[in-house]
């Protein structure tokens, strides 16, 4: 047990609350509007947090913290002065530090968000845990399996500290709702899954300082980047394995540089085929060369296909599928020749508020908000293992890192059980 620090003390104080309140906190996280007062009552004091890394993701974390009343952003650390200037410009009241260790040494800070380049997560996360801080780390949690494993081990060895990985769908009400739906057999027998992410952008970053510019372009550096499949695909692949309840047995990958031939070694276009343990194939493709049809995920089965777009879900029924009953009243959206039945989460709660369950929840928050809400609630009602735990984060990292290897080698690689051992 680690109770040298505030994080540890908080955890101990909350030990009694933990057993009785876990189900409540789980429910609370589902809606920003409902139960706000009940939730606040669970917090004995403000959660004092620090943000390490003020790139685009870090800025979103800071913005989201402003919408979580029980948490305060007490410090921002980034070793690049441009990012610190941005932080000061947007939040002059928050002190900034060049060295993240200054934040870890501050006993008033119980919690850190790590939003630095993927390959730098390991050192920061391990230092944060040894300093007794609760840790939220962006996904993928690391750029090598070895690093991810070291982090997972440290998280496991500090059960008194919360360790959550930024796999956002795990906290999102629409994904949780569809998870139940798929597990209750809505697809019939699952037969295949497919996901894409299409965007037209160079993925390059720029700085007036050449050295900084090289560091900023870590995603284009084949030596440390987990590539499109890791930095982007991770967030679409993780829910697929979660929904289908299987790991991949193997992955076959291809990658090309089709448009941004500017000296980079990382593909701007990739394809990966995952063979799940029960034989269901999962196709993933991503490109930086075309924005056509954007990003979406589909899960198909004998009776229906479920599609996610912009974190919202629709079901497309086969004509020979059994009647469910409720779909007659559900809102339907036309997608070219297909009629999608909207799957809205929180249907019963919306009904209680006199909002039609087939409408989108007007209180819907961003995916990051739900994940951070879960994380902050864990301070009052935990620590318990978060939905995006070190185990979940490690497994997702292993899958993505291995897939990136397959893509770079243009080959088929197996996932041995030993890979997933922590």
């Amino acid at each position: 047990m680690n109770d040298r620090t505030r994080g540890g003390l908080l955890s101990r104080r909350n030990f009694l609350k933990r057993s009785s309140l876990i189900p409540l906190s789980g429910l609370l996280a589902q809606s920003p509007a409902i139960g706000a007062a009940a939730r606040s009552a669970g917090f004995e004091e403000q959660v004092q947090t620090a943000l390490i890394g003020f790139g685009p993701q870090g800025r979103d974390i800071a913005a989201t913290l402003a919408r979580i009343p029980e948490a305060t952003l007490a410090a921002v650390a980034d070793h690049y002065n441009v990012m610190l200037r941005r932080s000061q410009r947007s939040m002059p009241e928050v002190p900034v530090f060049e060295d993240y260790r200054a934040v870890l040494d501050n006993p008033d800070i119980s919690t850190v968000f790590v939003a630095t380049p993927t390959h730098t997560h390991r050192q920061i996360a391990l230092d944060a845990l040894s300093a007794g801080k609760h840790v939220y780390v962006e996904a993928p949690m690391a750029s090598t399996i070895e690093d991810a494993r070291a982090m997972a081990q440290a998280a496991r060895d500090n059960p008194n500290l919360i360790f959550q990985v930024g796999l956002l769908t795990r906290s999102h009400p629409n994904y949780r709702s569809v998870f139940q739906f798929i597990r209750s057999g809505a697809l019939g027998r699952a037969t295949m899954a497919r996901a894409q992410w299409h965007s037209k952008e160079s993925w390059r970053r720029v700085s007036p300082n050449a050295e900084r510019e090289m560091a900023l372009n870590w995603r284009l550096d084949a030596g440390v980047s987990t590539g499109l499949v890791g930095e982007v695909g991770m967030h679409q692949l993780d829910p697929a394995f979660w929904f289908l309840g299987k790991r991949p047995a193997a992955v076959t990958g291809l990658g090309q540089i089709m448009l941004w031939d500017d000296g980079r070694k990382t593909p701007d276009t990739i394809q990966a085929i995952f063979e799940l343990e029960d034989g269901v194939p999962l196709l993933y493709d991503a490109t930086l060369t075309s924005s056509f049809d954007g990003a979406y995920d589909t899960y198909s089965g004998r009776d229906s296909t479920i599609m996610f777009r912009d974190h919202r879900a629709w079901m497309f029924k086969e004509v020979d599928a059994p009647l469910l009953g409720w779909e007659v009243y559900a809102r339907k959206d036309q997608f070219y020749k297909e009629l999608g039945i909207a799957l809205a989460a929180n249907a019963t709660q919306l009904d209680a508020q006199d909002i039609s369950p087939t409408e989108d929840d007007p209180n819907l928050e961003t995916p990051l908000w739900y994940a951070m809400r879960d994380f902050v609630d864990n301070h009052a009602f935990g620590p318990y293992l978060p939905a995006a735990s070190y185990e979940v984060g490690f497994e997702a990292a292993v899958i993505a890192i291995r897939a990136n290897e397959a893509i770079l080698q243009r080959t088929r690689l197996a996932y041995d059980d030993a890979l997933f051992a922590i």
Partner: protein
Amino acid sequence: METIRLARRAMACRFELVLEGEDAPRLRAAGEAALREIEWLETRLSRFLPASDTSRINARAATEAVPVESWLFELLKRCRRLHDRTNGAFDLTVGPLMQAWGFYGDGGRVPDADALAEARRRTGMRLVNLDEAQRTVRFAREGVALDFGAIGKGYAVDEAIHILREAGVERAFLHGGTSTMYGLGQPADAEAWNVAIVDPGAADEPVAVVALRDEALSVSAASGKSFEFEGVCYGHVLDPRLGKPVRGAALAAAVAASAETGDAVSTALLAEARPSPEYRSLIIEPGAPRRILQNGMPLHSPVNHVATPAAPASNGHAARLNFTPA
């Protein structure tokens, strides 16, 4: 010298960006970051996105003080100052009036007297309380709604230009929907970014050519999104003081140091129907024959063809921007 052109859809219009410099991949990367900033600001400011700050404020500020981040609080404070400086012609709280006049997507209508009176009761910056110490926003009554429509593009353009400067870009031109624009530095082969302002009623000949160098230009027009009822044309720019669409000028343009100020000033000039003594500006009066009033914006006439700065035909960088409905 390389030239990179980028475009992005955001804030219900098309943003276009031209960059000049030595290194094409780096220019593109800087431009992409600038356009990403605009998209990001849309997710924060749009009143049509349920998770935006504007939606959150509109939904809750009547019942509780809503905390906001510093940058947004500062933006709200500047909006209040611009409201005061334009004698109330620029007003963030036009939401209920826009709704009453049907300018949120349903084509436009003349509201009945009761609906209009109710919307006017919900309009006015005096109904918005900004608490500096707590950094919170609170509405004085139910039904007040913020709408950054008149200034959001300007703020976004300024922030995007800031990103470009930070990245070391020295020459760029950025516009959103041809109504809000900024010229960063100057093009390689001209003294300034020259922009032709066109009369929406007579698009053949530019009314004026405006030279921009580290400056913003905003153009507001009463046409664009508009509807006709019993022979009267109603435009989508509302005069919050009268509670109805402006009947002042057909078009107003203003040059300012920032696009945010330019947007607020041009919106106000449309209602005032005269150019501002403080800013390089012009207005086109409605009706025929058209009368154009200007301050510091020499008119470009076919008779006086040797205009200063260079006419668009002689300058490859002159953006001929017709004001078109978003």
